[in-house]
């Protein structure tokens, strides 16, 4: 089951962003959140200084245990993507002021594509057919 929640980030930036929780996944919820923030920072949708919802807000919004949110935020802080300020909301660290290059962003897709490639090989699909499908799915997303 996949659910997506709109979260209002900070007063100043007024940005709506998505956090989605995929239950039944082999990826723990804290890692799903870490990856989503990482991708949005890499893609420039979240940039330096923007605030993230508090642990309390996000836990309530997503109906997830607060320790799961804290764990995700702590990892993002340890990676230098977010910075914690005493008594204030977590925000995107100063050095992430603009999107990463497409070359480094595409690397973030690698793990998912490696999984898909392994499955395609198990299905004995020709590479061309798998690539066509991926292109088709990307195009569908663009027209929505």
């Amino acid at each position, binding site marked *: 089951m996949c659910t997506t929640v709109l979260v209002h980030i900070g007063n100043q930036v007024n940005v709506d962003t998505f956090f989605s*929780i995929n*239950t039944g996944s*082999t*990826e723990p919820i804290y*890692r799903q959140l870490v990856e989503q923030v990482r991708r949005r920072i890499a893609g420039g949708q979240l940039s330096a200084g923007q605030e993230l919802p508090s642990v309390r807000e996000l836990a*309530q919004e997503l*109906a*997830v245990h607060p*320790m799961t949110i804290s764990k995700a935020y702590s990892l993002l802080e340890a990676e230098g993507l977010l910075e914690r300020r005493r008594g204030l909301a977590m925000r995107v660290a100063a050095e992430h002021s603009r999107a990463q290059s497409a070359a480094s962003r595409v690397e973030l897709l690698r793990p998912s594509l490696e999984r898909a490639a392994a499955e395609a090989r198990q299905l004995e699909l020709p590479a061309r057919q798998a690539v066509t499908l991926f292109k088709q799915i990307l195009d569908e997303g663009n027209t929505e």
Partner: protein
Amino acid sequence: MNAMLKELPAAFPSPFPSPSAVLTGLHLDYGRQAVLNSLDWQLLPGQVVGLLGRNGAGKTTLLETLLGLREPQAGTVSLFGQPVAQIDDATRARIGYVPQQSDLFDSFTATQLLAYFKSFYPRWNEAKVEGLMSRWDIARDRPIAKLSGGEQQRLSIIRALAHEPDLLVLDEPVASLDPAGRRDFLRELVDQVLDRGTTVVFSTHILSDLERVAFNVAFMRQGQIALQAPLDELLDEVRAVSGPSSAVQALLRGAGLTALSRNPLDDGFERCLVRSATPLSTAGGLQVQPVNLEDLFMALTQ
């Protein structure tokens, strides 16, 4: 050490929080079949523990024994440091319980029921009760017997939350709620944890709910808690290893691991679940795959 702890002011959180519930060596059988079999279990403050087990594994028996509603043939239960059989009123007021079968008084209305229970508790959060009654749209002035199963279940949850318990025990609390009602209920649980550090234990078959709010999961098998751990850690560390049986066993021996479960497959192959903090080698034609909560459930409750 004890002397040092004694000197801390009462409000200072202890670095070693005393458990909300301690169950030791519980044994209970119905005739020939042991339902609880030397079961040991502890619940720490602020933990939200999801209790998982197959039908008939004894989850309800365990929760009722924890609450002192059922007497074990051997073993002890203490809640907040008191033996459950001799618990005083003040401690009893710190416990909330939502049973699997609604035990509300059928001829009362919701308003009468809540007024009745309110009289027993020193603390009663009227604002929370009013808020939930409105939000969950429960008829206040109809006999409880006339309410739907979902309404009765919601009322039972409100009754259990109203006195702001420090230990909340829920036995299949969401079975008759729709997805929206379940999500709302999970938010309430999150609030309890955020606001009060409530210890929560709940059983459910709806794994997606459990995954969200239960930071810890406990698997019940053969009358014992086979494993309790943070779900995050289990998903990070447990892997399904499959391949020729000899190669699987060689890998486990080499890494000094014991299998959480073993399933024989055809042609001398097998599939094992193992927990390892370091990545496992895939040498020798072995497949190593991550698992989800359902895989863990299947393997650890068998």
